[in-house]
């Protein structure tokens, strides 16, 4: 019953039904708001996350950092309540950080230290007995694949190895929840792949819960079972990729041979929301309810167009992200330097 021994948990938590709820939920927060002066960084954020791998995505200024600070117990919300790993977010900051392993985005190296000393220091700072911290440092360094580099000075580590080292430092006290802030940031493709494999292996072997915060949406799509989309301080979507894709409805990717200008114009006139693809002979069309494939083929025949592709257009996370943020913004194009695929989707105007 590890989730129940956290200081600061309210009395109501002690009853049996609450116990079950705490054990089930990783994060259970309600109406959490936080402002910095006049700026409201979080607005009535409510979310209930089950243990697993969760991706936290959002534009710059969406409130991700503030939410992470709340999850780490570094910030107390202005209003709202809830628990993280059974710890009350209003009262248990130190205990909370004892249960969470945080891998910061920054390099965060300490000069003149060796790898094993760095990870041991992390254990000491978490409050582990020094002897345990030392033993665990060797174990976690072995696990992340830095066993042979453990006695090297940190200045000699490559970017990829520093990322692994930070992961080892976050794992040292065997936390129940890992917060990974841009774990693949600055890595070359090979290093990124290795890091993602390591995280996948960690999740598979230990079953730890992970909250992944990154701008690289393909990483989130690959690793995460649940996704939380933050926009302007609010959670605008939350759920599994499959659940979020349900919103897509009758969206199809359509391809043809030859000139399809007339066909595309007819599609638009018939009520479908059409967006051009990167290829000239492809479009993505969102059909209104009641459309059938027979009607589509009839329209193609009418305009002497030979269709060579009709398939459901499954959104990837990038497209999904841009769609939901655009919907929430009321048509305003979200500000982001993220990938071009999603940008095309944002031009849909569905």
């Amino acid at each position, binding site marked *: 019953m590890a989730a129940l021994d956290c200081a600061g948990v309210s009395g109501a938590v002690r009853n049996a039904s609450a116990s079950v709820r705490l054990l089930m939920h990783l994060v259970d927060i309600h109406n959490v708001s936080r402002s910095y002066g006049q700026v409201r960084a979080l607005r009535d954020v409510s979310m209930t996350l089950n243990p697993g791998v969760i991706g936290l995505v959002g534009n710059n200024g969406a409130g991700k*950092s503030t939410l*992470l*600070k709340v999850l*780490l117990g*570094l910030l107390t919300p202005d209003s709202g309540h809830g628990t993280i790993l059974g710890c009350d977010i209003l009262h248990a*900051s*130190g205990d909370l*950080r*004892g249960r969470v392993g*945080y891998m*910061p*985005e*920054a*390099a*965060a*190296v*300490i*000069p*003149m*230290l060796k790898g094993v*000393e760095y990870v041991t*220091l*992390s254990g*000491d*700072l*978490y*409050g*582990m*007995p*020094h002897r*345990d911290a030392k033993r*665990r440092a060797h*174990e976690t360094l*072995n*696990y*992340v*694949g830095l*066993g*042979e580099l453990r006695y090297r000075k940190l200045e000699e580590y490559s970017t990829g190895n520093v990322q692994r080292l*930070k992961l080892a*430092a976050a*794992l*040292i*006290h*065997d936390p129940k929840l890992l917060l990974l*802030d841009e774990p693949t940031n600055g890595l070359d493709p090979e290093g990124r792949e290795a890091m993602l*494999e*390591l995280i996948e*292996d*960690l999740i598979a*072997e*230990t079953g730890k819960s992970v909250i992944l915060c990154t701008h690289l949406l393909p990483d989130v799509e690959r690793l995460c079972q649940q996704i939380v989309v933050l926009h302007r301080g609010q959670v605008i979507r939350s759920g599994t990729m499959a659940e979020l894709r349900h919103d897509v409805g009758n969206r199809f990717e359509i391809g043809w041979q030859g000139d399809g200008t007339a066909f595309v114009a007819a599609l638009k006139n018939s009520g479908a929301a059409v967006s051009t693809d990167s290829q000239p002979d492809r479009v993505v069309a969102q059909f209104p309810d009641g459309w059938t494939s027979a009607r589509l083929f009839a329209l193609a025949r009418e305009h002497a167009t030979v269709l060579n592709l009709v398939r459901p257009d499954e959104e990837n996370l990038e497209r999904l992200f841009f769609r939901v943020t655009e919907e929430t913004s009321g048509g305003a194009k979200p500000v982001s330097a993220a990938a071009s695929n999603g940008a095309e989707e944002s031009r849909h105007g569905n």
Partner: protein
Amino acid sequence: MGIDNAHYYGWQGELQSPRWATLAIVRISLLQVLRRKLYWIVISLGMVQFLLFWVIIYVVTQFKLPGDFQREMHNITGFSPKPDFGEENGYVTFMQNQSVVVMILLAFAGSLLVGSDFRLRALPFYLSRRIDRRHYIIGKLLSISALISLLTVVPAIALFIEYGMFTSSTGYWRENWTMLLSVLAYGAVMCASMSIMIVTLSAYLQRVAPIAITWCSGFAMLNRLSGYLKDATDNDYWQLIDPGRDIRLVGKLCFGAFQTAKDQWVAELAAMILVCFCALCLVALVHRVRAVDIVE
């Protein structure tokens, strides 16, 4: 070892109070300093001075030297380990001399121990663990204090023990045990004031060159300026704007080395100035550390 043949092992144990983490910060900081060869050069300067005092105590106590020669030996080091020597107290002289070495060491160590945490963004590493900003600041102040003590308090105590040993009687220790307290008190003043000053300076300037230049020239310039103002206005109190002199005066106060009430009052004034200055530095330091975003 790759991930294919390494497995994850859990850990079950009780986490201790984050207060203990400050000791880990001290241990790591000392390790950082002692791994740099440059710092060993500075530390060895302090060791040379200590050995000089050690040898002179040995010679003075073990050999019957003519009076003139003995006086000459005292003049070389200014070392008079008896408390009734007033302002010429040898331990004060030794610790004052060592404080110059300490200042040089801190000018370089500040960047390594504190500046690099800001420059290389290592502060989030510390503060995202169970400790908070208070523990971090205390840990860094204790680290600097440990360095200062290694060069001042510890060798001064060693000299005290040596003098007692070579006089072949425990009488010296029994009669002058308060001297040990004075050494510790002077050490505490140096540790508190210098650590707060250098940690604050390093937190703001971060790189070794600006820190070393500001630190050393600050002490030297204020020393010169205080002397100039004193001569120009014929007012001794101007000397109190020199923090190095203030520390020395408070140190002498700890040894009760002042003969006149006015000197005593000036030293007390120096203590007040030092406390106010350190309090300001501490406020600035807390402000600086609080400004760092742990999650960016």
